[in-house]
């Protein structure tokens, strides 16, 4: 019988099969859907493993064939604002009620974030850091601003640097490692690293330029994962609301471990690991969109509008609500983060998105709707 099917399949693929032959083959193929108990029984673990294995095979194959198309695109020294939105497919977002009593604000008045952060000490003290300074340096026995001005003498063991929405701050740790903390993020670190390893924790988004020290590996803990490095530069995005932790390696080598599934993988430069629950997916990415924030830009590389709007909202300290049916568009472009909100929104509005800002108590609310 194998021979029968072999011949039939060959004829069908060659296009030389008769109608009757095609009909029999298709009927027989379809008949399997009605036989009971032929599906494979998989535990959810087996299913995850299988899913990842097949996915990896696909990714490897695809990446070999498709070099990243945007890699060479635009050196972002060009500070021009290019924001284009492509596509016109509808997707549905929850209807939220309007707040008609709230006053409408002009987007020109909404200024971008700046150098804002607080430093929390183990004794409970919280220090507001200067907005005229860009970063702090942790030294042996004191903490200074980048300018050299002393901030604190004899800091406690564990310190916490926190940026609010609209805040960004840079910190030099006691080993010389530089960390840029994006808006609405927290970095927890010791004032002095011990001799065995250097461990910090991040929530939100941070860019690390780690100083090489082979005898003391540098570890970054964040939601669901640990990243272990020797000397390298990488970006971690681990905002609690996003359910996934993205690690993007710019240079060097890191070992990344999923704390739930204990899966570990090595990342190569240009690779991004996305951890969500027990899964870890590694893909080749253009690193620029993921690290542009550190250099003062929003860089959207064909992302869904929600992703772009969330980033914008974190920087301009806005609460977002979506209204009615929205056109499913894709945002592509680069925006200077030092511009007022209007610069970003004007470009968005050109293609199907409409924005309104209202003062709601002490909070500013960004209402996003379809532009009719």
């Amino acid at each position, binding site marked *: 019988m194998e021979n029968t099917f072999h011949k039939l399949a060959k004829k069908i693929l060659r296009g030389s099969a008769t109608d009757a032959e095609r009909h*029999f083959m298709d009927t027989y193929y379809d008949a399997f859907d009605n036989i009971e108990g032929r599906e494979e029984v998989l535990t959810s673990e087996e299913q995850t493993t299988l899913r990842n294995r097949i996915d990896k095979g696909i990714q490897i194959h695809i990446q070999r064939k498709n070099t990243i198309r945007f890699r060479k695109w635009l050196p972002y020294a060009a500070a021009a604002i290019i924001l284009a939105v492509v596509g016109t497919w*509808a997707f549905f977002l929850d209807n939220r009620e309007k707040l008609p009593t709230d006053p409408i604000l002009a987007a020109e008045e909404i200024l971008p974030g700046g150098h804002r952060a607080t430093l929390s000490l183990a004794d409970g003290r919280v220090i507001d850091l200067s907005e005229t300074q860009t970063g702090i340096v942790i030294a042996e026995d004191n903490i200074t601003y980048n300018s050299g001005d002393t901030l604190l003498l004899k800091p406690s063991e564990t310190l916490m640097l926190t940026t609010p929405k609209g805040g960004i701050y840079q910190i030099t740790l006691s080993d010389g490692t530089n960390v840029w903390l994006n808006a609405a993020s927290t970095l927890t670190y010791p004032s002095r690293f011990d001799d065995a390893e250097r461990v910090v924790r991040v929530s939100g988004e941070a860019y690390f330029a780690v100083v090489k020290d082979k005898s003391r590996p540098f570890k970054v803990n964040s939601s669901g994962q640990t990243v272990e490095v020797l000397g390298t530069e990488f970006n971690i995005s681990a905002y609690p609301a996003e359910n996934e932790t993205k690690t993007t390696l710019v240079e060097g080598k890191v070992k990344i471990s999923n704390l739930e599934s204990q899966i570990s993988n090595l990342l190569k430069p240009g690779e991004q690991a996305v951890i969500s629950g027990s899964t870890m997916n590694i893909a080749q990415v253009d690193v620029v969109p993921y690290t542009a924030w550190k250099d003062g830009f929003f860089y959207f590389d064909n992302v869904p509008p929600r992703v772009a709007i969330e980033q914008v909202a974190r920087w301009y300290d806005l609460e977002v609500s979506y209204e009615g049916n929205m056109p499913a568009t894709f945002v592509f472009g680069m925006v200077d983060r030092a511009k007022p909100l209007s610069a970003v929104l004007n470009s968005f509005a050109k293609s199907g998105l409409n924005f309104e800002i209202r003062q709601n108590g002490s909070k500013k609310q960004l209402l996003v709707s379809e532009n009719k």
Partner: protein
Amino acid sequence: MDNYAEYTDEDLVPLLKEGHQGAFSCIYERYWHALYQTAYRRLANREQCSDVVQDVFIDLWEHRGNKSIQRLEPYLHTAVRYKIYTLLAKGKALPAFVEPFEQMLVSPFTADGPFGEQETRRLLTAWLETLPRKRRRIFEMHYFEGRNTKEIAEELQVSQKTVQNQLNTASNSLRALLIKTVIMGLVFLN
């Protein structure tokens, strides 16, 4: 990735065609398991089924500009079908695919056959349609009229050996020959 999850297939297809990897990942999330099980029903081999699913998605990405991709789910299931036909055409041994058919030929209308009675009748009829006229008649008499080789030979005015040969040429494989022998046994017992 989860941002695409709210999109319907109709939304995803145009995005896929423009080369959005996120849309592609979402399609993979949505369909890999169903496609895997569709393949598994027919192949019952994890390795082969993984390869089938993998190839289907690689093709989807590489041929994403193809106009024939309209309704995603039927498109993907058809892709699995043709991957399996391709394995057959290459001469890959797919015992799980072939066995139900052999089983059906041995004991077509019994309770322990793989397919129900209706289905078996439909399949046998469809299969007989593919055979040359004379051979088809022999099988019809054999399966649907329950005649033995002697009776068939007499009615069609051919030798009993010809009838046996015709029943045998349904396949050349060793395994199928064995089954044929069993069929012959049943025929002679009639």
